[in-house]
């Protein structure tokens, strides 16, 4: 029991500590791909600390909501990230929330972020918020359809069960799973405001979505939000890895040795995914905002197709 709790706590800390590193790594790889030196790996940590130390500059008519939101976003994202199996399944509190809840948690984070964007009453916040909800209104159904097809395959929405099932030999190669994977990747890109949907590095207000929403944030608030975005990327990567690359994952009660294997495997998966992401981002260009619906619509269609094809592949 104590061990279980310890593992759970470890997981929460791991995600919290690993998230900035992951971002740093991605940036580093991208810089290298562009033949630049790039910032050191620990730069994100430095940024966070510096931001936390700075004072907050708050717009005159910002309300209490504006000040509470960063912590809410952070908390929701952190809890969600902590509930996704990383190096071990079946954690102490894993049953507190299944995959649908995790998606919904991210949804509530987005909800408050959009509200905060509108709170100050500048047009940038409005742009960001309205575009964000538009993207979400397509990404969320796609995500849920992916959840459906996973659940229909594994017979559960409980991530540990899904991971265990996907690890087992009875899965076999399914076309619908492939589709779900592609869809999931597309959704992940959109959700994390990565190229080609959005550009985390841009500072031209009119082209950005996520950055426009948080334009008014500064200091510790900004730090919280940044950390939340880091956590989100980590969350999606560990989600992909635990569902589609479930190797080395084992139940938390399996003992330290298994956990160590799981941890190593997990780091390996993250590295691979991060490199892939960096390569992809350097390879493609950002698309216009109103091309995004087509992009996500494709994801939606893929996910739905995957769900429907399941029955076919079942019947075969």
């Amino acid at each position, binding site marked *: 029991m104590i061990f279980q709790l310890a593992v759970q706590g470890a997981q929460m800390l791991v995600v919290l500590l690993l998230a900035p590193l992951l971002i740093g790594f991605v940036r580093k790889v991208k810089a290298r791909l562009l033949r630049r030196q790039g910032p050191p790996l620990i730069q994100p940590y430095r940024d966070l600390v510096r931001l*936390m*130390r700075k*004072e*907050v*500059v*708050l*717009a*005159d*008519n910002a*309300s209490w909501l504006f000040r509470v939101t960063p*912590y809410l976003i*952070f908390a929701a994202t952190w*809890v969600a990230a*902590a509930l996704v199996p990383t190096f071990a399944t079946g954690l102490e509190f894993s*049953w507190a*929330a*299944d995959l*649908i*809840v995790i998606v*919904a*948690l991210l*949804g*509530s984070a*987005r*909800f408050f972020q*959009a*509200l905060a964007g*509108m*709170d100050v*009453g*500048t047009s*940038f*916040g*409005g742009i960001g*918020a*309205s575009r964000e*909800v*538009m993207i979400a*209104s*397509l*990404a*969320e*159904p796609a995500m*849920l*359809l992916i959840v*459906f097809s996973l659940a*229909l395959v594994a017979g*559960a*929405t409980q991530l540990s*069960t899904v991971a265990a099932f996907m690890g087992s030999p009875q899965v076999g190669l399914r076309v619908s799973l492939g589709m779900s994977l592609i869809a999931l990747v597309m959704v992940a890109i959109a959700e994390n405001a990565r190229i080609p949907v959005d550009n985390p590095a841009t500072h031209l*207000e009119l082209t950005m979505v996520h950055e426009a929403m948080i*334009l*008014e944030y500064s*200091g*510790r608030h900004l730090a919280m939000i940044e950390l939340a975005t880091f956590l989100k990327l980590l969350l999606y990567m560990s989600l992909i890895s635990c569902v589609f690359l479930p190797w080395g994952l084992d139940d938390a009660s399996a003992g330290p040795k298994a956990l160590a294997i799981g941890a190593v495997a997990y780091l390996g998966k993250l590295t691979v995914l991060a490199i892939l992401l960096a390569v992809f981002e350097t390879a493609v260009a950002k698309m216009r*905002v109103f091309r995004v*619906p087509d992009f996500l619509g494709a994801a939606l269609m893929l996910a739905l197709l995957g*769900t*429907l094809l399941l*029955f076919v592949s079942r019947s075969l």
Partner: protein
Amino acid sequence: MNSTVALLLCGPAALLATAVLAAAVSRHSFATRLVYGAAFVISAVLVVIVAGHLAGNSGEASATLPLGLPWTGARFRLDGLSAFFLLVVNLGGAIASLYGLGYGRHESAPHRVMPFYPAFLAGMNLVVLANDAFSFLLSWEFMSLASWALVMAHHRDEANRRAGYIYLVMASFGTMALLLAFGLLAGPAGTYAFDAMRTAHPGPLAAGAVLVLMLLGAGSKAGLVPLHAWLPLAHPAAPSHVSALMSGIMTKVAIYGFIRVVFDLLGEPAWWSGIAVLLIGGVTAVLGILHALMEKDLKRLLAYSTIENIGVIFTSLGLALAFKANAMPSAAALAFTAALFHVLNHSFFKSLLFFGAGAVLTSTGERDMEKLGSLIHRLPVTSFVFLVGCVSISALPPFNGFASEWLVFQAILRSPELPQWGLKVIVPAVGGMLALAAALAAACFVKAFGITFLGRARSAAVERAHEVDRWSLAAMAVLAAFCLLAGILPGFVIDALSPVTISLIGDRMPVQMAQPWLSIVPIAESRSSYNGLLVFAFIAVSASLAAFFIHRFASHALRRGIAWGCGFADAAPAAQYTAVSFAQPIRRVFGGFAFRARETVDMPAPGSLEPARLKVDMHDVAWEIFYQPITGAIDFATERLNHLQFLTIRRYLTLVFLYLVILLLVLALWP
């Protein structure tokens, strides 16, 4: 004559007495307190009685009064289902009366509201209690009539008159459909008692007809697309506490009617009956919320979102039908519980939101979001509870909306076990529609809250705004608390619903209160589980921890400054995003097929000073497809027939003569 039922019947009687009293004294100053106070007390008492009955799980009780249809009598019955809906009705009624205690004082025409308000409550109570077709329809139509009178309260406004007209016509259309359905169930002998209908099972054709008629009848009252046209007109037209009742409670009474007939009286459903309900529900959900997104009138937005939630409820009812037809009682119980749970939740947060809208209306006199904004500073409490309502209705954890929608999704995930291919394929598709609706709902309420309460004031009306009275705030606070409680302790509700599911489905969801840590487990823990309480605790704890550490160890300095406006200091409030512009991306994406929306931009020549204009024209497709042709046809027919008013006497004689000759011919050719 059972005592509980007798007691429950005293409630409507007392309410009707209050109505009569109100008609007498409505012009006095003390009338408001008297009427709403009485309504509150009566409803509260009813809540207590019904809650006791539900908790005691004391089965069925019935009573017959020597009223109504002579040889049937007015029959009333209290079973699990009616008890649950009585709870919904009277809880809503009590809180609305509480709100009315304060809100009623701002009423401009109290003598047109107070007599009908208790009558409306009484009507809804009677519908749920009725146990024979005549009493049911009588109460049903009485309910419509009373609410119509309330919609017509501010009758000097042309729009309200139109709303009331369309409302009552649609209502009586629905009643006619129900009448036909009951006619089929009663048979030529005219056995109108529900008990008799229950035993006599109609043939498959008749059953199908009854289902369709119920979808028309109950659906038109609940607001299923395309029968929803009246709803967004009528609900906002009434005073806000009545809008809350109509949207939050009356639509539920309609759902009660549907359940009562389709699940109870009709016997075993056919497997395809599920498909119809599922599809209609899904379409209703998506179209309803899309309409809501396009609205800029706060109360109409809420009315449209009611349509969406009705769609969700009907979808899960359709699932329940499908499962029930395929003898999967546990799955059916899951879907049915989800539906009832969502009924309860929607009654909570929709009432809350309409109360909030009412508060905004009384303090600013505006319903148009484009003229609001920044109310979070002027109405702190109202804005907070309204936010709670928005979060709940957007199905975000850990609030109640999410709990019920999560159950719906769990039910959808049981669909692979269905034998029929049609269902196998349709159910996930409908699930996708629900997911879309949920995401859009979140977007919609970001807009609703963001435009109304956040940002900078868009009109002078806001500057004068001040927080509303205590009664209203109390009512809203209570509802907000309910939203949170039902969200973090869904197990209680689910277990409380088990008698209903047992009586109608024959099975129940596994006992939830036995689960560790009060989490809910629809099927098995390995399969799926959710613990609202824990999630809530985690978020609260980690958020406050983070805040605490940062403020303690990092920095808590804070400086106010003007917002960043690309170097232009403090642009005018008009430069903010408006409700319409907020919805523009989504309109670009979905408007094409949902509203046949078309944007036309006329850009002035470079150098010319007149502004560029963006014109958007959108069509209410349902209205154009279903209603305009009907009105057109009636217009045509009346125009043609009207000539018959202007004939000469000789022509009239000719008519008589021809008629005579024709009849004689018929007779001559008679075998």
